[in-house]
């Protein structure tokens, strides 16, 4: 071990002014993953415009202020950005030690949702209303703690050099750790989030190098579980209806099929360049429900057209591509697992969200990362960006 200081030039050089230090080859700023940062910021700002377009006329929810949602979205972005900086500053490895605390806190918040403190929005009982127009969706943060917790457990022995792969016992422990919050979320019921968590668990297991048996076993269990959920009637009527409407959108165009139909009409009518910002008749006419949150992509589709909507997909692609690279290039398994978990999370959530507006996925209440309006989701994804940056920044350091 040559020691951590062997790569640091600054130790021997003259003290430099603040901005030059930032530009130095080895500076934190130089080592940040700028494409991810840029893309995430761009997505958030595009999101703010789309949210504004979708809500400026919705007087029944914007409390008479057309900028109500715009300002809040920008505020959320700012807070998210700050959380990211904080996360980078603390570092993902420091957070590793705080996992028990974070995990405990997030599970506690989840449980709080099940108490009378929790409230129901759109059929999902997954919110804690804080008052003053703010509310918290703990399931968003649980996604992070599941990733961190599982990564901590799975990578511990491997990073220590004891084992090439996590053993069955560790995998079992990690699964148990993920299962607790997932069960709680399922009770809410917030099936969309559960699905995301399943995918996260899958991604984490894959990246950890756990035996194929676990991966395929989990896939099989997931399928069986879905079947069981369907057969045992755990699903609410509205959820079954959503799936039925997905299978056949013309089933009930005024009812459950309405969302998907209107969403598709909005996107389809956008054409190549769209109707122009604030000129979409579907958006202005509020034909698409939940357009500032789950169906925000339809605003882009209608008003910005193929060009604008494609740009969102490309930006998400940049984030995911860079995140994959970070996962592949970081030196320790812990970082790899965390990055892979985030990739699985972002990828599935983006695919599900955009897919449902395009009519190729069933409707679930999942936000589009960065773009959809919603504080908890925005904070969570920015924290995730912070984790990615932290992993990237510390890449050259030896474990």
């Amino acid at each position: 071990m040559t020691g951590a200081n062997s790569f640091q030039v600054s130790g021997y050089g003259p003290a430099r002014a603040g901005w030059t230090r930032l530009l130095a080859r080895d500076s934190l700023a130089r080592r940040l993953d700028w494409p991810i940062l840029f893309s995430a910021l761009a997505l958030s700002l595009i999101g703010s415009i789309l949210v504004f377009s979708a809500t400026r006329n919705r007087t029944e929810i914007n409390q008479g202020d057309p900028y109500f949602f715009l300002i809040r979205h920008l505020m959320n972005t700012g807070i998210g950005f700050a959380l990211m900086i904080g996360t980078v500053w603390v570092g993902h490895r420091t957070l590793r030690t705080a996992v028990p605390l974070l995990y405990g806190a997030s599970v506690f918040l989840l449980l709080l949702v099940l108490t009378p403190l929790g409230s129901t929005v759109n059929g999902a009982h997954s919110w804690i209303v804080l008052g003053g127009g703010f509310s918290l969706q703990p399931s968003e943060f649980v996604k992070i703690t599941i990733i961190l917790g599982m990564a901590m457990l799975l990578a511990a022995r491997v990073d220590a050099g004891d084992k090439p792969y996590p053993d069955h016992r560790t995998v079992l422990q990690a699964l148990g750790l993920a299962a607790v919050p997932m069960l709680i979320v399922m009770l809410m019921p917030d099936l969309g989030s559960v699905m995301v968590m399943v995918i996260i668990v899958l991604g984490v297991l894959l990246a950890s190098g756990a035996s194929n048996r676990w991966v395929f076993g989990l896939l099989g269990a997931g399928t069986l579980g879905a079947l069981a959920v369907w057969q045992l009637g755990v699903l609410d009527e509205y959820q079954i209806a959503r799936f039925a409407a997905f299978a056949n959108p013309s089933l009930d165009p005024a009812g459950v099929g309405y969302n998907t139909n209107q969403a598709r009409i909005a996107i389809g009518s956008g054409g190549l360049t769209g109707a122009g910002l604030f000129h979409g008749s579907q958006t202005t006419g509020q034909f698409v429900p939940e357009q500032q949150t789950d169906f925000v992509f339809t605003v882009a589709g209608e008003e910005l057209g193929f060009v604008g909507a494609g740009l969102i997909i490309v930006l998400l692609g940049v984030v995911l591509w860079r995140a994959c690279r970070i996962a592949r290039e970081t030196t320790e398994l812990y970082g790899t697992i965390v990055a892979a978990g985030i990739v699985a999370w972002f990828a599935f959530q983006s695919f599900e969200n955009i897919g449902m507006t395009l009519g190729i996925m069933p409707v679930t209440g999942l936000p589009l990362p960065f773009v959809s309006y919603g504080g908890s989701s925005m904070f969570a994804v920015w924290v995730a960006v912070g984790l990615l940056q932290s992993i990237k920044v510390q890449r050259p350091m030896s474990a």
Partner: protein
Amino acid sequence: MTNIPETGRTPRVQIRLVVIQILVLSLLGTLGGRLWYLQIREGDAYAKEASGNHVQQVVEPAVRGSILDARGVALADNETRLVVSASRTDLLKMKDDGKAVLTKLAKVLGMSAKDVMLKVRLCDAKTPQPCWNGSPYQPIPITDEATPKQALQIRERAEDFPGISAEPQAVRRYAAPGKANTAQVLGYLSPVTDEEITKAQDTDSPYLRSDQVGRSGLERQYDKELRGKAGVTRYEVDNLGRVIGQAEADEAQPGANLVTSIDARVQRVAEYELNQAMKIARQQFDKITGENYKADSGAVVVMEAKTGRIVAMASAPTYDPNVWVGGISAKDYKKLTGKNSDYPLLNRAIQGQSAPGSTFKVVSTAAAVEAGYEWDGGYPCTSSYSVGGQVFKNFEGESFGPISLGRALEVSCDTVFYGLADREWKKDGGINPKKGEPKDYFYKAAHQFGLGKVTGLDLPNEVTGRVPDRQWKESYWKANKDAWCRTGKKDGTYVEKIAYENCLEGNKMREGDSINYSIGQGDTLVTPIQEARIYGALANGGTMYQPSIGKAIISADGKTVQEIKPKPTGRLPVSQATLKGMDAALEGVVTRGTAAWKFGGWPQDKIPLHAKTGTAEVYGKQTTSWLATYSKDYTVVMTIAQAGTGSGASGEAVRKIYNAMYGVSADGTINKKNALLPSPQTSLPKVQTDGTIKSPKISKDPAKDQRASQDATPQPDETQQGATVNTPTNGNRDTRRRRRRRGSRRMLT
């Protein structure tokens, strides 16, 4: 650090990470592809759907124009009624599809719940009336006769009646001024069908879902003018129907008013007298069939002789056109159109056809002159005319010796016409005409008199009648010979024998055919309106006019008046000298001929009348009576099916119509005060500055008034003895009571 590589990852992890990366990118690729499919490939279709989504049309129906009589009295107009309607979309949102609400509504309206439900169901191929054939998104009217109390009940308890509205609306009213209902001439309206909407989509007068369309009569003929143009305002709306966008509006243009040549009072008199005549005929005994006359249908046309304008047109049996307003009930519909109905929707003045009987002799007379026969030549009027083995008898075996054509027309001598027609038939080469065109004077004349084709009157679905010339015989034979040859038997029953003959030579003009034809019997068919045109032309000196009812179309604001001018369509093929002779002969019919017994005491020197009676045989039925008359200005033609002779059945009624128009009392005195229309109405009703049309008051029942005034004691100042005194004692000469003979063929009507 043994076997763990520097990167901290085993190859297995590395491979899996690559797999994840590929998977993620392919997911994004899928999204991109789907996005391209929706926006670029299918973009246009979705754009269309989106625009349909957010544009709402609000239709303000145009007020339909009125149909007025010649003096401006409304025959059809609009009135404000309280219309209770149900929104189907709202009802379907309820758990029981609105059954509870409709049942409650039925109770308030005093209707049966079943009737209400039937009214709101949608029409399709399998659903009979009543049903709604308008748009399912449009309120469906349940009744337009709600009382203010019922409307209030519904409005005040709106929460009990979701989806039900009660609002005043303009609905069609057939006012029947002075009890003149004019049903068949006016026609009726019913909601536009999907088919018509698609058909009229790209024309200059497209239909709206809410439109009512004229289905018959003037309502149909002048539908485009009367309908106006509905106002359409297009709003951009949001998902809750709130208006968000700029409105684009086409204002409603109310329909134009149609002024007709009908005079409501004369119309009423005509309707009343026709009905009376039929009632009286039903009390008469028919010696041939051994039972009372059935007099099951009839028609009368009163036409201005010098313009072809219709002053009155009545058809019996009739109905109340108001049954169509607000949707017709199943029971009423069946009554009007069912198999057991007497088809009151038919306008028998233009859609009823039968053989003309002796009224046809004016055509034969003209044909004879055309063929070169001297007017004053002595033509033998014998009691019978024999051809081969057949004997064609004159009416009741009368004989007048050699007489002129005019006299033959006056006394309606059949044998004269038999002889002339037979001679022409032989000249043309008999049953197998020589090469080259046979002259066919008698048939040509019929065509020149406008028979065998529509008169072009401005009413829909006029029938053509028929001239049984060679051409028709040929085509008729071709169409029927298979059946004839199958059923015909040489020694069978009468019908079978006829079929046998027809099979052999039905395509040939036989001697008997031509002989029968010359006196208006056999296969000839005419409509009352065709007769009116012929006799109108005789009255005006030979010009045939296209009959018309519409006189002017006046825009709703009264600013544009589009007059409909009388249209001469040709001249009778008759010289002025012949015309004079015929005129005198037909006057003789009134003064001393077959109609004289009904026109005794008529002031003939003041108001010369001309007439021809006719009695047409109909196989298997009682005879059809015809009476065609004209004065200087008017033609009145009346026909009643299964009612005996022309003068017997209609003489009195036609006289009473003339009485009413000229103000003639029963004893022949003229009282100008009572005259409804001594000369035709030439001016149009006055249009006031606000566009409304001035209309005179009309008494409750002009027909009853007329009867009363005609029968009242004569006023001393106007006392005038009628010029005609001759009152024949014997009946109508025109009734032929021949036994069925070989060669006399009759239309089975």
